[in-house]
């Protein structure tokens, strides 16, 4: 498999690029996800102390803190908004041209360089996570997951990363028709934030709505993996989640192929 070489080289080239900028690398290490977590932490602390109940919707304050802590770490890892903007701009400004002459598909190139960036983010996430755990061990009293579920968790998060990436790639194709797709990406981000459980846990939604969410990929980006870590999910449900994501990956991939082929007929490679 000679493809392995080019894939791993895409990954390492991206990693090299990240390391070229040390300051930004170390800043990211501590800042991403942190701000949003701080907001949620203060918000829920106030809600709990004002309402004087020990549980809301099955969440104690500790569980809620843990929820948003996990949410911060996973979100940093699966977030792919930038790739949509980058590809979209590439189409609009003609940068795409140089990739079209490579004997390597643009999708493969983007996926593996994207993965390179994500590996770094994973490492930084893990380091921050370890630091938080050492500093506040009491928060993690509830954190008990079997090894097998943890393995399934890793697979699920990887698949939701792929889904999220492909979704952005799919949307970036609209650049062939619309030129400027910033708003499309913003809308997607908004949907993702709301439907993934980034803003509020999904079980706060009405039950009917919550059930519908199970068939869409967004739920599996954040809410679902967090629930695994919180020990609220049966193993069969995880398999179901993995199945749903695989189906979506196939659907989005073929939609992307379709749009890509149609869009390429319109591409003029401006500015080259």
């Amino acid at each position, binding site marked *: 498999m000679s493809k392995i070489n080019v894939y791993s080289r895409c990954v390492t*080239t991206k990693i090299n*690029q990240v390391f070229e900028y040390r300051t930004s690398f170390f800043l990211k290490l501590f800042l991403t996800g942190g701000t949003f977590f701080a907001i949620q932490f203060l918000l829920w602390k106030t809600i709990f102390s004002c309402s004087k109940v020990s549980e809301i919707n099955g969440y104690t304050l500790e569980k809620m803190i843990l929820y948003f802590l996990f949410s911060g770490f996973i979100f940093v890892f699966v977030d792919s908004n930038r790739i949509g903007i980058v590809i979209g701009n590439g189409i609009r400004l003609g940068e795409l041209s140089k990739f079209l002459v*490579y004997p390597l598909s643009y999708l493969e190139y983007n996926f593996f360089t994207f993965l390179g960036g994500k590996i770094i983010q994973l490492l930084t996430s893990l380091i921050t996570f370890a630091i938080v755990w050492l500093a506040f061990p009491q928060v993690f009293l509830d954190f008990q997951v079997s090894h097998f579920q943890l393995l399934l968790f890793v697979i699920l998060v990887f698949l939701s990363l792929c889904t999220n990436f492909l979704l952005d790639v799919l949307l970036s194709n609209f650049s062939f028709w619309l030129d400027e797709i910033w708003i499309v990406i913003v809308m997607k981000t908004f949907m993702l934030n709301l439907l993934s459980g980034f803003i509020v846990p999904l079980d706060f939604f009405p039950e009917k709505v919550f059930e519908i969410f199970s068939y869409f990929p967004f739920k599996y980006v954040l809410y679902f993996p967090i629930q695994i870590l919180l020990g609220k999910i049966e193993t069969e449900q995880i398999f179901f989640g993995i199945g749903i994501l695989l189906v979506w990956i196939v659907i989005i991939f073929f939609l992307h192929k379709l749009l890509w082929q149609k869009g390429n007929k319109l591409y003029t490679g401006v500015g*080259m």
Partner: protein
Amino acid sequence: MAIEVKNLTKTYKSHKKEPGFSGSLKSLFHREVIEKNALTSIDFSIGNGEFVGLIGENGAGKTTLIKILSGIIFPTSGTAEVLGYKPWERKNALKKQFSVVMGQKNQLWWDLPAYDSFLLLKEIYEVEEKQFKKIVSELSEILDMKDKLYTQVRKLSLGERMKAELIAALLHSPKVLYLDEPTIGLDVLAQESIRKFLKTYNSQAKTTIILTSHYMDDIETLCKRVIILDKGILQFDGSLEGVIKKYANEKVISATLGNKVELEKFTNFGTILNSNELQVEIKVERKNSTKIASELLNNFPIVDITIKDISIEEIIKNIFRESK
């Protein structure tokens, strides 16, 4: 044949927008589509190892042609074959055999040393380790880039960056190479060294090269054959001397005078291009040039006289001016 182009036409569609805010608002609902022919029924073929110059004004269709030949865009009608493949089918077998260098775009990673990009390209094009090392060391030696390969690309000068781009494009020893204004914006020395490099590379590697450039020096030193495009139409295809024969009906006689002469008198022989006290340059008809020169020698106190062709640049300018 390395490249064969038959009846190639490309039409771009775009929409018209009236200026100002009201124009923008209108264009939200109704857009007038304008079609522009970038290329009209182009035919030519290029043999293996040829070095062909593609000349034309901005918007003449040069870049469109190169984009079609490298499979970046699809033609509207007609066909083209590069090494036996239709480029827009984007077969990997073809992609591994050609390269494009665009003076205004870079394929190297901006934040990384050029060598990192080379390593990535090595895998993309599946170049063998030994071959890769050999090519990098040879090319960087000739281009005097040996100690620049490990510096971030963004910190290189424009000339150095172009040289690095050239090495990157040649890593997989392409059989066909398209150069779209590789010397744009470079200083004279850098231009010259790139020109020299291309000349030797073409003769040694037998690469088929199409070059577009606005610098006539590039074309004159490198290309035996030129293709002239004007508003998407092929105006001329042939040798550089052919251009001169076909379009240069005039020669320039320049004379140095021993003492002052009334300039008026020269207008009987041709048009005066330049003159100062003891120096005059006149444009005369090509076929009469020797006769006029001897008449001038007989009638004026001339110390020195030369007859030369008008420059290629001048000729090209004339072609475009006539077509307007």
